[in-house]
């Protein structure tokens, strides 16, 4: 399939202006006649729904939680980037653009990233006006901090709760439109299928999670802002409900899925402590500014850390990367933790952990300074592990955190199904093979407040929408598909719970398509995933009925989709014979063990088309061109 990225011509700094000028506008009187569905109420979906409501469209917004304010964006801690250059330290739109393209290991589209950097500036203004209580200096101006290895201080933050405050800003704007009657909110409602009629998206099929009722919602355009798919791995830093069902079912209806194997593993999470574990908790990356990472030199050294003398410790990051030390990027830090644990030098009961030690920093700076800098994180760590990090080194281990892959979209954020737009973490667009810290919040809000409201308008103005109703065969077909899946899941009545399958699936994906991958392992994983999926459809046990609140049934549908997505991730990882960002193929590394890209053969976006379960998906390639930032090998030695 030929992918039309629709990037406007002209110099990069003028592209977005040109695109906006070329767009057709919808007459204000006609806006009310167009209905738009927004699935998701996170930073991306919430901001889009609110803005479209303000513009006068008839909007319906959906989320599976009991309130739009609970979308997983709420959990982001660190901050949001913007090229404001308030610190006068040399930041600029161009620098943010450059950092993001390079950080993404040259697998993102330049034009999109440039636009993101341009819009970043407006996002902060908008959020301040909404009442987001960003940190301030005594003079009343906005405070910044540096984040994720950037050399400039461009991250805006609201204590350790930036995501929460940004989301509440979007949520309040959304509720204002609900009150005004322009947005109808459907909480506790899950999208289960997409309705495509005559080649255009025309609606969705939903299930109300309280009553079990299957609903039909028709519209002229559908926007998905349904978040990332990190929960394929079962254990992740995502919320328990985060899922891929909306994007996966849209994929099955024709939307191509781009770069599914580009997933991000965060190096500083609290290690797994037992089989009952339901999720992983992230500890801010900033800890690596003062903590030193080490493991014992000897294999299987079970002595308490304080009894291991200095000369018997291996500060492996400082040893291997003398110039960046403990501050190497996320992917490098994660991979090295895995290596030392694979060698049998991991710490803690499970031996899947490394020490993050603050004793030097406490000695050098005093406990008070460390408390000021990291007090809340230390408290959180202690609350979860019952260990005092001021006394014993923290134990950390990498965990899956973010998914760069997602549905393929063009410059206008429209997928390969006309009228279906995809925003936020659900699309693949701006982060290439690796995302920089504090840039997901920026992307979600940029897509939702400032891009999609224009591009949807252009689509509506350029297309005709013949009237349709619930009796349309495509509508009936989608409803029937949803009902069949639910009936099937409820009727199997096998022996194993949904969670037990999900855990096992997650382990396979983590072992073979996690921090490092190789062709043989991926082949093996694909086979294992298929076997497990077959077993799932014969042996899963879903109690209760479809006619009321049934959390097992909700999970069962999501896990069914994770199986298929997991297989596609492995296929994509096997097909990409290079290492790039979060995708590390053991066969492709430099002599000293670093990721090796192959720009001659793999400088493209891999977009996969669904061809029925069991059939090899169809690969389409969107070539990537770098006119402004020239690809180079990353080095942190």
């Amino acid at each position, binding site marked *: 399939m030929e992918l039309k990225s629709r990037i406007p011509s002209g110099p990069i700094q003028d592209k977005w202006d040109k695109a906006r000028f070329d767009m057709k506008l919808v007459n204000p009187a006609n806006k009310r006649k167009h209905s738009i569905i927004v699935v998701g109420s996170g930073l991306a979906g919430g901001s889009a729904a609110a803005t479209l409501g303000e513009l006068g469209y008839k909007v319906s917004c959906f989320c599976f939680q009991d309130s739009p304010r609970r979308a997983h964006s709420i959990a982001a801690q660190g901050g949001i980037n913007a090229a404001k250059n308030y610190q006068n330290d040399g930041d600029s739109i161009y620098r943010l653009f450059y950092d993001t393209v390079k950080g993404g290991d040259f697998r993102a589209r330049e034009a999109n990233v440039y636009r993101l950097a341009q819009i970043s500036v407006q996002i902060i203004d908008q959020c301040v006006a909404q009442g987001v*209580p960003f940190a301030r200096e005594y003079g009343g101006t906005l405070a910044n901090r540096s984040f994720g290895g950037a050399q400039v201080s461009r991250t805006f933050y609201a204590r350790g709760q930036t995501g929460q405050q940004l989301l509440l800003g979007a949520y*309040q704007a959304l509720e204002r439109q609900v009150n005004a009657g322009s947005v109808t909110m459907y909480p506790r409602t899950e999208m289960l299928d997409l309705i495509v009629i005559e080649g255009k998206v025309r609606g969705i099929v939903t299930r109300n999670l309280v009553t079990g009722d299957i609903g039909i919602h028709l519209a002229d355009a559908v926007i998905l802002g349904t978040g990332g798919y990190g929960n394929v791995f079962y254990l992740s830093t995502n919320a328990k409900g985060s899922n891929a069902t909306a994007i996966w079912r849209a994929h099955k209806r024709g939307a191509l899925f781009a770069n599914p194997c580009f997933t991000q593993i965060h190096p500083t999470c609290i290690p797994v402590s037992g089989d009952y574990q339901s999720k992983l908790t992230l500890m801010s990356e900033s800890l690596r500014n003062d903590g030193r990472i080490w493991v014992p030199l000897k294999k299987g050294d079970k002595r308490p850390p304080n009894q291991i003398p200095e000369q018997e410790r291996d500060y492996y990051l400082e040893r291997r990367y003398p110039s960046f030390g403990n501050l190497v990027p996320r992917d490098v830090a994660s991979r090295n933790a895995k290596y030392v644990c694979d060698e049998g030098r991991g710490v803690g009961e499970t031996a899947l952990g490394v020490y993050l030690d603050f004793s030097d920093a406490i000695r050098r700076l005093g406990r008070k300074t460390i408390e000021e800098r990291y007090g809340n994180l230390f408290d959180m760590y202690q609350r979860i592990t019952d260990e005092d990090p001021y006394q014993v080194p923290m134990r950390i281990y990498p965990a899956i955190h973010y998914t760069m892959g997602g549905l393929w979209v063009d410059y206008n954020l429209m997928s390969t199904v006309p009228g279906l737009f995809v925003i936020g973490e659900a699309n693949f667009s701006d982060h290439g093979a690796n995302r920089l810290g504090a840039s997901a919040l920026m992307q979600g809000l940029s897509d939702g407040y400032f891009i999609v409201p224009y591009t949807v308008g252009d689509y509506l103005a350029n297309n005709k929408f013949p009237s349709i109703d619930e009796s349309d065969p495509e509508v009936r077909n989608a409803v029937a598909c949803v009902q069949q899946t639910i009936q099937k899941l409820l009727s199997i009545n096998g022996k194993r719970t949904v969670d037990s399958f999900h855990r096992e699936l997650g382990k396979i994906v983590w072992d073979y398509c996690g921090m490092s991958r190789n062709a043989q392992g991926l082949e093996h994983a694909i086979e294992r995933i298929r076997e497990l999926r077959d077993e799932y459809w014969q042996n899963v046990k879903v109690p209760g009925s479809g006619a009321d609140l049934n959390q097992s049934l909700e999970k069962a549908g999501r896990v069914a989709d994770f199986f298929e997505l997991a297989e596609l991730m492995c296929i994509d990882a096997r097909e990409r014979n290079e290492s790039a960002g979060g995708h590390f193929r053991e066969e492709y590394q430099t002599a000293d063990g670093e990721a090796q890209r192959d720009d001659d053969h793999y400088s493209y976006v891999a977009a996969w088309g669904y061809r029925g379960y069991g059939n090899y998906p169809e690969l389409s390639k969107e070539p990537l061109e770098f006119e402004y930032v020239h690809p180079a090998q990353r080095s942190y030695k």
Partner: protein
Amino acid sequence: MRVTLKIWRQTNRADKGRFVKYQVGDVNPDMSILECLDVLNEQLIERDEEPVAFEHDCREGICGSCGFMINGVAHGPLPATTVCQLTMRHFKDGAELLLEPWRARAFPIIKDLTVDRRSFDRIIAAGGYISVSTGSAPDGNAIPVPKEAADRAMDAAACIGCGACVAACPNASPALFTGAKIAHLGTLPQGAPERDRRAIHMVAQMTAEGFGGCTNIGECTGVCPKEIPLEVIARMNHDFIWGSWRERDNVVTTMRPFTEWSTGSKFQINEQETD
């Protein structure tokens, strides 16, 4: 360790509901009480019984989904902690824990420990925002905000909308929740122009929802996982009184406190009623 859980089981709003006793052995002190319920649920499913419905999502104490009463205390015994972060090591081996849902007229029960908190969304929709449409904002530094104002606003803005304050209050008043939003927005210069309107509309909606009134008992702040201070209620009352006087010529409308679920096919229109 092992615990006995006496859990409120109720199939739906029509059902009368009852406590059912469950034994959970093999409890790891490091697990959260939600993980303990996960373990119980896996066992129930294997025994062909219906698992306990409880709300949760982030499991990091920030989304506000989770919450139930443990031995009569909202979110359990640990201060400033939601149930998703409450680990079992805080209970004695062999302890008996009584788990029941938030109880308030404006939070109808959906199933077991799950309640309907859409009334909170409507309180926000009534006025818990700054009316600034996308694109119309001045530069972020155009209006300086004193650091103290930003800090106090942030203290109040930390509310996660969990509803524990209502559950703990003998009057089932959401004053702490509403006050937190009024204090957050009203403390910032950006939120000042709408202070009067915000307070009277949010308070009117609160009343329309069937919540009780605040009589300054203070149970709410004691259980609040984000330690929202009682001062926010004083702030609400202050803004409400001034607002009622200044806006006395204006009619206040509220949204209908609906409890039904709409499934689609049609757009649901908010019925506007005059209070």
